[in-house]
């Protein structure tokens, strides 16, 4: 992360629609948003308002129709797909609603995937994976298969995977909505603590109000627009 820019994510006048003609849906209608380094930002709003779409655009997995996305000082709206993939592999960590762990490989191997994608293999990858698993309290389970774990534990693995390569930005879509209240609270505590230690920026989409108190800032979204909070 460059020292001079405190703004890690800057969105300017983002629009996005799906479909065409009569079936066209304007999902994002002029979004401006900045996120500071080390900030934990939550985006919430009613179902279908465009939260996930916005998150996809922030993470560079989806391109907006118009507007500018600058992440870590790089204008990703202009980047080519291949470079964008490299950029994501290096600077972004992901945690998904349904964890998306690979069922046939062990927990530590799952955690090591972002390292493998970057070409870090073998002993080094294993060491770093076990280290981060220790931080989420699962190092004693590292050689089990994911299906041997509870939902909360699987999400902890997913968070370890999101952090193992020390990305500057963590992207989470509904990280707690598949979990019960207490487990969700536990996951958020771990996420909050680890990202604070590493000064990582976190963007979370959620409509789980029970975790709102972890946020540094919450933006409300409705009908493709952000409301001032």
């Amino acid at each position, binding site marked *: 992360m460059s020292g001079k820019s405190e703004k890690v994510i800057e969105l300017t006048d983002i629009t996005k629609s799906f479909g065409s003609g009569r079936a066209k849906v304007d999902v994002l209608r002029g979004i401006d948003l900045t996120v500071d380094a080390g900030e934990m930002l939550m985006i919430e709003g009613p179902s279908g308002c465009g939260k996930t779409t916005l998150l996809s655009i922030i993470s560079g997995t989806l391109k907006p129709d118009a507007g500018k996305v600058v992440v870590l000082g790089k204008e990703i709206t202009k980047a080519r797909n291949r470079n964008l993939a490299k950029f994501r592999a290096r600077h972004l960590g992901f945690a998904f609603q349904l964890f998306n762990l*690979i069922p046939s490989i062990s927990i530590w191997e799952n955690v090591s995937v972002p390292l493998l994608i*970057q070409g870090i293999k073998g002993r080094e990858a294993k060491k770093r994976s076990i280290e981060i698993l220790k931080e989420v309290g699962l190092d004693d389970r590292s050689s089990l298969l994911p299906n041997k774990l509870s939902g909360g534990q699987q999400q902890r693995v997913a968070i370890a995977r999101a952090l193992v390569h020390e990305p500057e930005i963590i992207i989470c879509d509904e990280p707690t909505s598949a979990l019960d209240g207490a487990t969700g609270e536990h996951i958020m505590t771990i996420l909050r603590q680890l990202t604070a230690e590493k000064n990582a920026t976190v963007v979370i989409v959620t409509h789980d109000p029970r975790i709102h108190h972890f946020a540094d800032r919450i933006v409300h979204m409705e009908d493709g627009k952000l409301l001032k909070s």
Partner: protein
Amino acid sequence: MYRLALRILFADRTRYFTLVSGIAFSTLLIVQQASVFCGLMSWTDAILRNSRAEIWVMDTFLEQVQLPRPMREIELTRVRSVEGVKWAVPYFHRVLPVKQADGQYKMVQVIGLDNVSLIGAPRNIVAGNLENIRSPDTVMIDDYAVERISENFIAPNGEKRDVRLGDWIDINGSYFKIGAICDANRPIYGGPYIYMTYKHAQGILSPDSRTLAYMMVATQEGADIPTVVERIKKETGLLALEHEDFSWKTLKWFFANTGIPLAFGNTVVLGLIVGAVITGQTLFSFVTENSRILAALKAMGTSNRVLLNMILLQATSAALVGYGIGVGLASAFGLFVIPLKKPPFILLPHTLIIVFIVIFVIAMVCALLASRKVLVLEPDTVFRT
């Protein structure tokens, strides 16, 4: 990442098993059929391989070695006078019936050899002596003839046993004594071989029949064989062919005039289709079922190239294992049937190489088709469950 791809593939036991067995089955079918086909085709020129001549001379309109068109005896003299010809000997070939103990007939191929030199006799004599066939009414039969004739043979004393040296057989109404047994290459059809002198062979047929099926020709030392071939053709108006060319001519005839290549070809194509469908379908469902995880990998920054390579690697490794098993099974089949001597089994290195390439290409094409889905997958679909 690639090690991971293999781990993921192997972990999916059922699918891996399906993939490998599909490819193995396909390989087995193709290799086995191709080898039996090669074996069968190797039988087409058995006569030529049993009798080896530098040059064969025959009627111009002859189609293949099993269908002789006898010439006039006088042609022998004309061929002998061609420059470069060291010697030319007559060769009798005719399919004739052997009478069985029950009155039924079995067909055999009677070969008549030059009375003096006995040129064209198979070298591998397993019982008796080739020279015996010079004696009146004496013949040499091959091991296949022993087998065939013994199926229904009754000795003079009424005993039911295999034929052996000294026994008498009825060929087309004339009686002949077995004076030697040889080991000859089997024919594709027409029955086993019985060798006798040209003179004896002529005696079986009515006196006005033409008997000169072929001439076996040797060239003088230092003579250029193709040149001599051309000279014979030009000066006699007959057809002359070197051993290899005659084999080819015969083989080509079988390709053009029998359903054998087509029948085998059909099975091979069937094998290919089965292999392609199983491989394609398995890889496709693999990709479809894992699309959420593949999308996650994509979101996390795995490039299309790496994902494609992962799937290609999975297909390749399954193809290699499947090919190995298929070839192993085909060879086992071959080892099992070779002693039976029934369908000859000739597994050529060419077959192995061609089948390897074909299987490999099928696996690659299937992997490419299956991976199309991954390549067009938008990484953001991982967020949409």
